[in-house]
């Protein structure tokens, strides 16, 4: 196994681990803030996975510039990078909405424990 494969496996492994850690936090933690942190960790893992699939060993930026006109074969895939930028912005938006909802919930119930907020059936 050469180094490229190792790096690739490492990136995939780390991202899947991050997704699982985040999922664990969302499913088991009782504090609203921790649940949102879990969601952000899942997002982070997915972004890493997304960047990982565009990885090329010794890759260059996907820009044709003087001196590297024939670099097309070595360029990293630009699409995952564009996707990850969009996904980061979306993740930021969702986290902001979630935190503002938590503020609202805290004012209403005076607690952040999910067990104590159950006027609706969960």
């Amino acid at each position, binding site marked *: 196994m050469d180094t490229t494969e190792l790096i690739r496996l490492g990136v995939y492994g780390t991202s899947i681990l991050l*997704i699982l850690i985040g999922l664990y936090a969302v499913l088991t933690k009782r504090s609203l803030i921790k649940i949102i942190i879990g969601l952000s960790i899942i*997002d982070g893992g997915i972004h890493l996975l997304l960047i990982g699939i565009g990885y090329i060993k010794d890759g260059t930026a996907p820009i044709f510039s003087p001196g590297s006109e024939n670099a097309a074969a070595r360029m990293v895939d630009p699409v995952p990078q564009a996707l990850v930028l969009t996904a980061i912005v*979306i993740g930021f938006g969702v986290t902001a*909405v979630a935190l503002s909802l938590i503020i609202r919930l805290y004012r209403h119930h005076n607690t952040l424990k999910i067990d104590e907020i159950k006027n609706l059936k969960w």
Partner: protein
Amino acid sequence: MVGSPVFLIAIPLLAAFLIPLLGMVWKESVRIIPGLVLAYLTFLSANLYLEVIDSGTIVETIAGWQAPWGINLVFSPLTGFLATIMTFMGFIVWLYSYRFKSNVEFEAAKKYFIFLMLLVAGSIGIVITGDIFNQFVFIEIVGISAYALTAFYTGRNSAEAAFKYLIMGSLSASALLIAIIIVYSQLGTLNMAEIAANIDNMDPQYRVIAMIFFIIGIGVEAEIFPLNGWAPDAYTEAPGPVGGAFAGIVVKAGIYAMVRMMFTLFNISGPMQILIVIGLVTLIIAETSAMRQVKLKRMLAYSSIGQMGLVLVAFGMGTEAGVFAALFLMLNHAIIKPLLFLSGSFLTFNTTDKYIKQITGMAKKMPVVSVLFALGALAISGLPPFSGFWSKLSVLTAAADENLMLIIALVLIISVVEIVYYFRVINRLFFFEYDEKISVEPHKPGINGMIALFVLAGLILLIGFYPASVTGYIDLAAKDLINTHEYIDKVLGMAF
């Protein structure tokens, strides 16, 4: 050519951005601009739709990048049909909520209309885009505006409902993104048509995993079991017109994304057991839960989920008759369920809990609204001569063609359940004495709200008595969905 499909997304987004700015100059503009925008969108969408029926699918390339490389919008007989329903329902919801919070506060109304615009823009985007990542972005736009609209009222439990929706929504969006990553890493493209053309080159293992993640990812908006736990709470806690918008617009977009994925992306032909199973489970659980509800809007929400289950069952048959029945059901549900939500929120006006017992005897105080509610209830439970009858009949005939007797039996049993719980409400509404202690204090509904209800009721009667007025269009839309090769050719045709 009256305009381009891009306007259907760009104009509501621009309006959402301009509303707060113009609101600083002229307060009334906050209410008027959304109406103008939605009226224009309905006009534009209907015109484009008629053009598409005459001369074939419009594929709009954005920024000059041709199909597989750039994002493209596909306005076909199917997507045009759905986009027209959505813009029209958006207009009806605006008409109903034109005086929303008029004498209370300006800020609240401003936020409401901004998010309504975003909700409509996102839902139309889900339907007309031809790119899976773009669809993900629109699903998130719909999600974020739907969370905000659900949490609209500060005094109630709305933040809790919205938080629940948010957790489910963002987890499923993560699943959708993983599905997109799997597809991209295998096929190197995000364009739906190109994926459909190359799906056979994908490793079957990856194909199954990607499909599961897609179903989880889209299932929350499409309200399939078990991802619909948010729906009853969100429908109950959100303002009345928002419930109508969820049922008339958002769910339709979710179901579309689901069937586009199954029929086109994964290019499955023939019966799809997975959709039939998901649909039947959703249908049975939702309708039996609806029986037990004591709150009016929760009952309507469960009924809505059940109807979506039935739509998925019909799609799952995979035949043209099945797709026809499913689209007919979607059209009817898009008209009838908002009528029920809007008239229901007139009947339970300004109450927090919206218990069914609170509408006891309201027919004597608000006869017109009550009759309209009853009309909607009869139509959705599929009694002739209303529109719901024809769509349920077409589901049954489609199932009979395929010899799926179990489905026929279940649909009929579920119809009886539906009739029981809707008649329980109608009975309370009409044949009980008005009781001041438990019933809601009657109020005079606004003229704009009544116009909206009458338009919907008129459509129900029109489709009920002349089903031929819409079946031709639905037939074209069904053919469009079934014919994957034509979709691929149309979208990629210019590039190759």
